[in-house]
């Protein structure tokens, strides 16, 4: 059996080869003994392909219909530009966060052709015009939330975060689009939140999308819009990137379905808690006559 090579895993200092192990474990290879030594791979030709951390995709679905024109869209563009560095901090620890932005008005359009790592992401300022094709946006999202499309990254470890922002009633058959989206496993297990902007946005429709009223919030002023977007985006990415599958926990073990349900519930609780702590806003409401 001299031509048969079994490899016992290297575990810290344990360099004893097993009886099965013909693979030469005693060669002049020092196993890294400290974290610092692991960092030093200057002579590693394989470093040409980078290492990816556990990853999470945040989908922003943004209404860019004509009614968003003016203060709403201006504020949204500003807060999204400010938000990117904050989300970047969420991912710094042990999760790579990627962002995908789908805009919907008369047409649906992705800001980039693929989810972009947050460190490379640059916000493209949006303009508002046209009608509110929310159903078409749901269909497009369903199409892209697949291992064969936007969720193809091998390092994808978490169900996505999906954040919908709109200021009005859909102008197409949103229910048909939502029905299609609801068949998508990533949607089912994703963390969903929605923000209604101004008085025209219908919270019932948004709750149909998220599956719960707790994860729907409403902004009536520019100040609130900025607060709500930050609260939802940061909280959902924090919860989304948390490992709750405690498979090695000896006391209890959550089934995957329970993990997703627990995360969605936690998101609702935290959003409501954070919103209740927000100070009053003297800003002029969006819908006050200009």
């Amino acid at each position: 059996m001299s031509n048969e090579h079994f490899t016992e895993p290297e575990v810290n200092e344990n360099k004893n080869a097993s009886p099965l192990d013909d693979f030469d474990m005693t060669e002049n290879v020092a196993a890294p003994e400290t974290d610092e030594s692991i960092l030093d791979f200057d002579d590693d030709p394989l470093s040409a392909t980078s290492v990816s951390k556990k990853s999470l995709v945040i989908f922003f679905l943004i209404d860019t219909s004509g009614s968003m024109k003016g203060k709403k869209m201006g504020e949204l563009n500003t807060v999204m530009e400010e938000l990117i560095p904050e989300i970047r901090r969420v991912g710094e620890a042990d999760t790579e966060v990627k962002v995908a932005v789908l805009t919907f008005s008369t047409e649906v359009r992705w800001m980039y052709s693929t989810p972009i790592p947050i460190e490379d992401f640059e916000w493209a300022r949006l303009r508002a015009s046209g009608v509110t094709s929310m159903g078409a946006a749901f269909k497009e999202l369903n199409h892209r939330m697949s291992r064969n499309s936007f969720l193809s990254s091998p390092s994808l470890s978490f169900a996505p975060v999906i954040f919908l922002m709109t200021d009005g009633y859909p102008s197409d058959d949103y229910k048909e689009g939502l029905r299609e989206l609801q068949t998508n496993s990533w949607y089912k297990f994703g963390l969903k939140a929605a923000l209604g902007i101004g008085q025209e946005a219908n919270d019932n429709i948004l709750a149909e999308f998220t599956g719960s009223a707790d994860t729907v919030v409403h902004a009536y002023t520019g100040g609130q819009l900025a607060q709500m977007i930050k609260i939802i985006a940061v909280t959902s990415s924090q919860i989304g990137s948390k490992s709750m599958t405690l498979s090695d926990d000896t006391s209890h073990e959550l089934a995957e379905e329970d993990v997703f349900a627990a995360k969605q519930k936690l998101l609702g609780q935290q959003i409501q808690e954070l919103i209740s702590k927000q100070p009053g806003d003297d800003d002029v409401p969006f819908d006050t006559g200009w």
Partner: protein
Amino acid sequence: MFSGFSHSVMGASHEKTNLVCQDSSAFKIGDHYAIAVVADGHGSKKHFRSHLGSKFAVEATIEAIDRFYEEREALEASLPVNHKLIIRNIEKQIISNWNVKVDKHLSENPVTDKEKEKFTEEEFEAILPESYYGTTLVAAVSGDNYTFGLQIGDGSLVALFEDGKAVMPMEYNESAPANVTASLCNSNAASLFSSFYAPNKKLIALYGSTDGLYTSFGSEHDFLDYHTIITSQLVNIETFKTVIKNNLEKRSHFGTEDDISLACIYNEKLLTDRMDLIRKRVDENKKAAADRKAAALSKQV
């Protein structure tokens, strides 16, 4: 003439929780054939002996395939026509060998009170004994001008044939977040295997890896490019062994923190003959990766 290597590293997350490495790996160079095999024990609560299960899977696979190669000429004469049946029979033989090893180990080492203390009595009664040892398995085999592979559960197979392009010869299905990996311990394990057979193709190198490697990459392109780079390093195998060990440690440490195993078999002569082509592929891949990144970062709105 074939050669090979295999290596398993313990995941950073398992080090943190004082678990043992759940992966096993091996390669075997036979007479005009070679085998690479990796297995990933499930590691979760009810699979509390899966580090042994993966070791048994690797041993069971090599024993099963060796047995089929006892009459190599007859096997190779039959493969072009009956490969599906033969591969299915190898899979069944692996399952059988694995169950024999599990049964033997369990009869010699009954479950201890310490192992049981993590469960209520009802919970423990509900677990089938073979589940204690649950594991995935990926095996790759090459002869002089054909290659085949088989797999149950997560993991990857990558081949470089004589054109020097890295390909995944096995078809993989869409997996959603809640999907549970198939396992040798499943009662219907025989129906859960996937396989491929590539006739009349000369192989440069063939790799099997556990999913800790795949999930340490941001894209499938990067994963395939990595295998092309590895292949370009195989000519200096002793230097390479150091490099690959370090690199797998790094990928686990900075990646998904999972255990990682990689096993490889390669044709030494063809590797040397095609080295210029492989290096050319490495350069092409590097350029293609830069082009992909530039395209992805271009705004569409």
